[in-house]
């Protein structure tokens, strides 16, 4: 069987606008899966060639920015030469206000974008078509997420022109749900689309193509048959992630180093994508209203700790980098007891990124820092408990702030967003956040602060009537990208909308300004500080959250004890009394909390209080890292 399989040669391509600084895990994993089934696979990170051509920094800017689909627009003429909707580049004028991040002046931006669109895209596609031995491939696969569609269509179109027998297979998040079948219907250079997870479907598809078997027997496919789109039943999601091989990134590194995108060095600092879990255990129970991730595969699955340890070690050895970026949507909480303690014990030198739920506590963050988690993206989203409730986040503002505190203390970089625009929110929700932010300046500011984007698959999209969302239309820039024949309602991932009884934009001016000030404060040479020293019944808090206005609070006895009682985690006055006898009624303790809050030293949220200062002493060893729980697991 291997022999006939090895006759089917496969190329997997990652097109612009995939980030240039790390390999595509989708392409790397599909290569390993297909090769495990006996198919020879080459991978091509063609995004790198385009990044080099237009300048890696500018390319990176296009990748990182979330806004109008500039990347898709740049390739739309090449993807749809006769039917592209904006040959005259009206988008650059129409959306000029949203493109200012791309250059110093509108003229400079227009000139650069037009040069790329009219010249460099075509030269790039010509060069790509000539330089790679496409004629040796029977199947060319494209993985498409976010703005990778039109560049992929443009190349596929050329390949189908020059090599009519090549089979083009598309997949990825852009083909999930309704999107894949509609793209198959409307765009003729797509032969087959894999809808949903491709781990099992893709090798089965290759097997059927190699053997000439009926594709109707393979679940999870969409293709045109006699001018109609034929969709097979949905494939089941991969239940056992431990069965997946590790992604193969060799060709990425070779290509990136050949092109000079990465230096050729002995030890690399590249963040290697690693998948330790899929789906979202929180979303499976309470889907956050704005989240459109995990379109059709929300159920949570994770790799065993033993398998994760193996993969970290083997990938570090293969690619000579100890940095790992987990692509998981949420951390598997069992890793706190079964994975991280082992990493601590083994004293590995990994640096790891994870997306996490914001309810992590001090001891958990301490453990993660010890284990090498140096970056996290918590689902903070708001500093208002009522807004968090509206978005079904399952956390309170006071927990979010506590996570920021201890992550900061233990040296974990936090990347988080401040969002607004949820149906049902009030002006008070935002004036309260605006008032609280000056007290939080010593904590890492949000990476972005803006209105939510309405995403396909999110509850706001799926239950739009219940949320009183009106005038739902595909985000405006799609109309500058896709021809009339494409049903944007079925293809778009982002949508414009209005909400009944929504707040006016002016209601967010205060929080927008406060967030900007917060970010600005962290640009200073000395970031804002609020730190404390303590001895029994004695606390001193140094406050220099406003640069040049430093001063010290000194508290003794009861006040010191009350402040320290709320240091580790949010605590109520009643709970404080339960743990210690303060000879004061709960009401008096609550009044003292309010006094602390007035000085910006505590954050109050309902009945809970949280001291805001961080320990002045850094770098102390954790009190325990669960050593007793780790004896059964060792690095193999």
């Amino acid at each position, binding site marked *: 069987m291997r022999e006939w399989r090895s006759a089917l040669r496969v190329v997997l391509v990652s097109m612009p606008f995939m980030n240039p600084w790390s390999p595509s895990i989708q392409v790397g994993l599909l290569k390993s899966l297909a090769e495990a089934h006996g198919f020879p696979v080459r991978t091509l990170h063609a995004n790198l060639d385009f990044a080099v051509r237009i300048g890696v920094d500018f390319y990176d800017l296009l990748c990182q920015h979330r806004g109008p689909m500039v990347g898709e627009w740049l390739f739309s003429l090449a993807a749809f030469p006769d039917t592209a909707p904006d040959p005259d580049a009206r988008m650059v004028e129409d959306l000029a206000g949203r493109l200012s991040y791309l250059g110093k002046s509108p003229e400079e931006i227009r000139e650069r974008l037009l040069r790329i669109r009219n010249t460099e895209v075509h030269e790039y596609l010509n060069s790509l078509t000539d330089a790679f031995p496409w004629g040796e491939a029977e199947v060319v696969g494209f993985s498409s997420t976010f703005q990778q569609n039109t560049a992929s269509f443009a190349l596929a179109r050329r390949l189908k022109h020059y090599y009519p027998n090549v089979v083009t297979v598309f997949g990825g998040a852009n083909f999930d749900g309704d999107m894949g079948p509609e793209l198959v219907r409307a765009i003729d250079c797509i032969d087959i689309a894999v809808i949903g997870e491709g781990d099992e479907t893709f090798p089965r598809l290759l097997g059927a193509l190699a053997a000439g078997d009926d594709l109707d027997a393979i679940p999870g496919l969409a293709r045109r048959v006699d001018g109609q789109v034929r969709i097979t039943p949905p494939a089941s999601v991969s239940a056992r992630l431990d069965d997946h091989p590790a992604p193969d990134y060799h060709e990425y590194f070779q290509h990136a180093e050949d092109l000079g995108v990465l230096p050729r060095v002995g030890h690399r600092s590249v963040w290697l994508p690693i998948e330790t879990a899929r789906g979202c255990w929180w979303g499976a129970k309470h889907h956050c209203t704005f989240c459109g991730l995990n379109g059709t595969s929300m159920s949570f699955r994770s790799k065993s700790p033993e398998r994760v340890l193996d993969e970290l070690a083997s990938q570090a050895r293969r690619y000579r980098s100890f940095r790992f970026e987990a692509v998981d949507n949420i951390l598997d909480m069992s890793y706190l007891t079964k994975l991280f303690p082992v990493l601590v014990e083994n004293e590995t030198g990994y640096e790891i990124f994870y997306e996490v739920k914001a309810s992590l506590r001090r001891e958990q963050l301490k453990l993660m820092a010890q284990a090498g988690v140096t970056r996290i993206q918590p689902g903070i989203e708001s500093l208002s408990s009522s807004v968090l409730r509206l978005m079904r986040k399952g956390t309170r503002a006071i927990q979010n702030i506590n996570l920021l505190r201890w992550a900061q203390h233990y040296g974990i970089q936090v990347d988080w967003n401040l969002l607004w625009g949820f149906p049902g929110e009030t002006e008070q929700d935002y004036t309260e956040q605006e008032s609280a932010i000056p007290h939080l300046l010593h904590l890492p500011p949000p990476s972005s602060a803006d209105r939510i984007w309405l995403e396909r698959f999110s509850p706001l999209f799926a239950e739009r009537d219940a949320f009183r969302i009106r005038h739902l239309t595909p985000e405006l820039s799609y109309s500058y990208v896709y021809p009339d024949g494409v049903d944007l309602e079925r293809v778009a991932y982002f949508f414009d909308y209005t909400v009944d009884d929504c707040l006016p934009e002016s209601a967010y001016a205060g929080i927008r300004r406060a967030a900007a000030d917060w970010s600005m404060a962290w640009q200073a040479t000395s970031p804002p500080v609020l730190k404390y020293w303590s001895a029994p019944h004695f606390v001193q808090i140094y406050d220099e959250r406003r640069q040049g206005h430093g001063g010290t609070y000194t508290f003794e006895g009861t006040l010191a004890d009350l402040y320290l009682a709320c240091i580790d985690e949010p605590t109520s006055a009643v709970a404080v009394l339960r743990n210690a006898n303060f*000879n*004061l009624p709960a009401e008096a303790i609550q009044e003292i909390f309010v006094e602390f809050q007035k000085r910006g030293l505590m954050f109050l949220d309902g009945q809970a209080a949280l001291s805001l200062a961080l320990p002045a002493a850094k770098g102390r060893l954790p009190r325990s890292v669960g050593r007793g729980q780790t004896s059964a697991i060792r690095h193999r």
Partner: protein
Amino acid sequence: MTDLVFSHQNIVDLADKISSVQPSLNATERQLLLAIFAAAAERAKLSTTGGPSTIPLAELKSEPPGMRAGQPVTPDVLKQQAATPQSLKQQLLDAYIPGNDFNILAQVQNKITGDQLTG
């Protein structure tokens, strides 16, 4: 068990307070109180230099913060635990002092480092 640190003045103050309740005690109660004090006195470590003396602290069913094992306890702390909401508010009002000495300390540290380097 934690030691309580006390001074001669603490004893004088306590004796004054107990003397005020003496008229209300009957003979048995007075004898009992004296016997308790006598037994306790045997466990006190008295200073011979005029400094503070110590006596093992009794375990109370509900200890105020700061009276836990392993933490030294002074009469000052006991006084603070009895603070009123009003006095705590006053402490809050007086708590803040602007300024810092970080630059001065940095200069001193630099000087020491410089001396070490040149030495």
